[in-house]
């Protein structure tokens, strides 16, 4: 949903630091809060330092018993390391085997972070393990864990990762489709997003557009982000008219410009950019929301 778009606020240690300092802190294996912040920092600032990926791979292997007195909770450093690796692009491809191993961890939050990172890295190798995690369907993988608000699997992240990776084989689509009927609207939204990315079939876009009218703001926000991620141009007017913050509508419309297959601009050659009329219509809608 919004992960990867809006970074989670980082409690404490929010001071501006240099890349060298972030790498130094990530090496402080007896100071989890320093490592927690350092891992977040390296992802947020898209570090390309050659030490960043190896150090984050090490941090991804850190497992700590829960210590209620500690400022940083169990496995939080590893979660932030996974999130950071997802943002580091090509150099982080080397960490895909580590992230695949993390996808099998007992910790729900770690599986979630690993799935999102694998999606961001467009890791083809992850398609089959992601598919298997969802294969038991909404009634098992998508069932609520007793005593917690969590589902058995981090379905939203798993679905979104499959959509991001973009390999729409029939057996992948077949596993995702039942989640369009999940009782939680956020899961339905994630499933529609993935199916729209994988198939381009308008019915999934139409379902996401319908969710823009949902009575809960949280659901409308998710549908905005999902339409943006899928670059679904037909949603331009419904997005602009949604009852939600302009900031989120702007992010969604940016997605319509950048993710749309008809007009994906090439960032390495900006001089070649000349917006076509459909793109100008999206830009005009963005201008009106500033």
């Amino acid at each position, binding site marked *: 949903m919004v992960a990867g778009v809006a970074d989670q606020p980082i409690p404490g240690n929010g001071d501006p630091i240099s890349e060298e300092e972030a790498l130094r802190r990530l090496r402080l294996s007896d100071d989890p809060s320093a490592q927690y912040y350092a891992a977040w920092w390296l992802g947020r600032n898209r570090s390309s330092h050659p030490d960043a990926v190896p150090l984050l791979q090490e941090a991804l292997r850190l497992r700590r018993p829960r210590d209620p007195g500690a400022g940083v909770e169990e496995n939080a450093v590893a979660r932030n390391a996974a999130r950071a690796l997802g943002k580091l692009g090509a150099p982080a491809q080397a960490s895909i085997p580590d992230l695949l191993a993390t996808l099998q961890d007992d910790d729900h939050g770690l599986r979630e972070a690993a799935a999102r990172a694998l999606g961001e890295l467009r890791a083809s190798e992850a398609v089959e393990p992601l598919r298997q995690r969802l294969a038991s369907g909404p009634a098992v993988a998508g069932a609520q864990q007793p005593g917690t608000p969590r589902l058995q699997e981090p379905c939203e992240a798993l679905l979104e990762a499959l959509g991001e990776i973009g390999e729409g084989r029939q057996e992948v689509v077949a596993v995702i489709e039942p989640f369009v009927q999940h009782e939680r609207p956020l899961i339905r939204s994630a499933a529609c997003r993935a199916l729209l990315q994988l198939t381009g079939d308008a019915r999934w876009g139409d379902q996401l557009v319908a969710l823009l009218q949902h009575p809960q703001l949280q659901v409308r926000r998710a549908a905005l982000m999902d339409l943006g991620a899928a670059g679904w141009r037909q949603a331009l007017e419904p997005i602009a008219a949604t009852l*939600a913050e302009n900031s989120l509508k702007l992010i969604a419309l*940016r997605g319509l410009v950048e993710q749309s297959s008809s007009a994906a601009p090439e960032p390495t050659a900006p001089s070649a950019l000349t*917006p076509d009329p459909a793109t100008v219509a999206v830009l005009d809608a963005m201008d009106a929301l500033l």
Partner: protein
Amino acid sequence: MTTLSVQDLVDAVRQADSALGLLQATQALAAAAHPDGAACLVEVLGFNNTGAAVAAVDGLIAIGEPAVDTILTNIDGYNYGARAWAVRALAGIGDVRGFEVLEDALGKDIGPSVRRAAARGLGQLRLEGLEPEPRRAMAERCLTALVDGCRDGEWVVRYAVAVGLELLAPAVHPDLAADVGPQRRLHEALQSLHCNPTEEAPVVSLRAALALQRLGVSHG
């Protein structure tokens, strides 16, 4: 409707006891576009109700210049959401009395939504009523603030800066400015947004390209 006074409309906003009720009462007050409703509309900006805030901003813009003093004296220094809406209202009204607030907001505010509204507003101040000399000076101050804004860390603010620069372009045309310098700076700023090799958001490059195209400046 004609029997309701502005005070009745204000009372309805203050007595609203649901989000929907607040939205509807605010829309009614905004539609009246009466200066006596401005203070109440400014209050609504701080209620954390997006729909009502949108309606209140529309109402303040419809009231126009008579609302400016009320907005300026009530800008909330603590509520970022409310300040973003107030800056947006000032940007929409375009009164030059809002300049300092917009300049300060773009340069210093920690809320990206405030900075982006300010960037757009700095491009659309209504300078036509000013004498030639203060008009040139004001246009150049807007330009300087926007040029500095090109380095903002948030893509949406850089995007808004591109929009603001496009809107400001007529005010720095050589026919109005002392020389071609301001126009050249404006074009260079757009070109830097368009060709910035570290730009993470292609949409920013694209918007700057559109601005250059509309201004008849070759790019790339």
